[in-house]
């Protein structure tokens, strides 16, 4: 009996992982919320990639006769003021949301890592200057910074991605810098120095790969907030422009006046945003627990 209990304990602690399937079931059991989040995120990615299969109608075709059609029949989530099908617009909106979310997160992480790595590894005046610059960038609330950037770059899909990536940079740079400071003192860095490796090569060959784990944690955490920022910018009319169907802008077009007359125009895009962000947040929490045990809650 004791051996059986012992075995069960081992399985619960994840010691008996010998196939990718058992690894999978272990993680699902250990992090049920994270698994739910992953499922939601995968669903959104699939919908975004195969949008033409999921959409029932063209998201940009207008039709005066179906203007503000309530849910049911051909438009099962209703139609907007211009008679465009809500379901199809939400499906294509997933593309925009994910594109902006992933695009700005990757862009922000890329520059954040380079800045954080160089300033942490080389230190000195370079570090001093970047630290002050990061302080300045972080002094503004994320949305205000993104608003300013979006306004100064002008409305387009690419500019929205850039505008949202800017406030991510200082955040990533700060974390990577503090990681680099610790990694710099590692024996293997000393060893690399001893065999005569150049500083730049050490920074990118030996220090950079060790910052991947915190970077993944940061990236998944930022993804949700990037999607939310895009929605807010587009809601305020300073994000992704027409004809792209953006969830945020769907809400601004319909906002206050349709609360009375066509509530479906307010409810469904909001559910789409909340669900997508909720999924990435759940996933982000689980990823942090798995990769960064010190912060485990």
């Amino acid at each position, binding site marked *: 009996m004791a051996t059986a209990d012992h075995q069960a304990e081992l399985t619960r602690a994840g010691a008996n992982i010998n196939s990718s399937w058992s690894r999978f079931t272990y993680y699902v059991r250990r992090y049920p*919320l994270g698994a739910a989040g992953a499922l939601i995120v995968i669903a959104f990615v699939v919908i975004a990639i195969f949008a033409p299969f999921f959409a029932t109608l063209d998201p940009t075709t207008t039709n005066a006769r179906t203007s503000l059609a309530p849910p049911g029949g051909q438009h099962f989530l209703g139609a907007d003021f211009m008679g465009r099908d809500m379901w199809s617009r939400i499906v294509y909106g997933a593309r925009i949301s994910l594109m902006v979310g992933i695009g700005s997160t990757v862009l922000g992480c890329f520059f954040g890592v380079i800045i954080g790595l160089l300033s942490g590894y080389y230190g000195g005046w370079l570090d001093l200057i970047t630290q*002050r*610059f990061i*302080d*300045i*960038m972080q*002094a*503004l*609330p*994320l*949305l*205000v910074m993104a*608003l*300013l*950037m979006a*306004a*100064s*770059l*002008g409305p387009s899909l690419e500019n929205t991605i850039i505008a949202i990536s800017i406030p991510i940079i200082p955040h990533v740079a700060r974390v990577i810098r503090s990681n680099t400071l610790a990694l710099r003192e590692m024996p293997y860095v000393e060893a690399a120095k001893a065999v005569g490796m150049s500083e730049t090569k050490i920074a990118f060959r030996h220090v950079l790969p060790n910052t991947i784990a915190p970077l993944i944690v940061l990236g998944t955490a930022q993804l*949700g907030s990037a999607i*939310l920022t895009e*929605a*807010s910018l587009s*809601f*305020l*009319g*300073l994000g992704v422009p027409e004809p792209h169907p953006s969830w*945020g802008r769907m*809400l601004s077009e319909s*906002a*206050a006046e349709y*609360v*009375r007359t066509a*509530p479906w125009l*307010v*409810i469904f895009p*909001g559910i789409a*945003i*909340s*669900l997508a*962000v*909720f999924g990435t*947040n*759940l996933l982000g*929490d689980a990823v942090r627990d798995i990769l960064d045990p010190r*912060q485990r*809650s």
Partner: protein
Amino acid sequence: MATYIIRRFFLMILTLIGMSILIFVMLRLVPGNISDILFDAAGMVNEADKARLEAELGLDKPIIVQYWTWISGLMTGDLGYAYVSEKPALDEILPRIPVTAKLALLALIFSVLIGVPLGVISAVKQDSILDYSLRVFSLSGLSLPSFWLALLILMAFVHYFGWIPIYTDKPASIWHEIGLLSIPALAVGFRASALIMRLTRSSMLEVLRQDYIRTARAKGASTASVNYNHALRNAVLPVITIIGIEAAFLIGGLIVTETVFNIPGVARFLVEAIRWRDYPIVQNLVMFIAVVTVVVNFLVDMAYVLLDPRIKYDD
């Protein structure tokens, strides 16, 4: 400690100076200035008129001169004139501050009132069904866009009461005003409370693992006494730090919420000014927001030094 405070103070000033340069440069990257917009809107094409307009607004001067004019104005309280209304920028901004400040304060109160108790409950009942539901609740708070929450609240009002609470600048009484403001404040505060709840929970969990908690239990203190007298008091310290981050968080929420509820505060005004490329308003407002967040963070740091006697700043 005095040296720490002084150093921290000068860093704050340095940050604000850098901030002013950043704001100024970013706004000058804009393709097309106010004269272009006014021209497009009025359908005018005369180049001489345009040049005269630019000279009048000071847009023809070198960027350094424009920056210096702004900064020296800031020192003397002269913020220039708003392009759109042609009134002094200060007169446009000042009357809008109280309503946003009240809204932010109410939202902060809501977020603390919701966030701290739920965070404590979640930590004390760690890994129970209640803890899981509260964690999902707080995560959903972080996932709902505050403008959507605001729209849903409006919708609920229309559905159940048949009317929408409309903001008025002449409320009948202070309670009427608080009542009106607490609806948008709840929309903003709910999201912010999620942040506080998560931090309270993790900070509480950390404290509950400490040796002095075990000692308190061992000497026979009641569970309630351990949780509230010993644990919560220590767990609340990091929660105070988050008020600094919270300030930035609330401003983001206020921008969209004031837009939904049509509240004439500074946050909504910022969006309007950005759309109009009204430089004097935008740069002064953003500077104002930066000053508020930086000063709040500075004060929080100072409060931390006073509240936590364990921390010594000798450098």
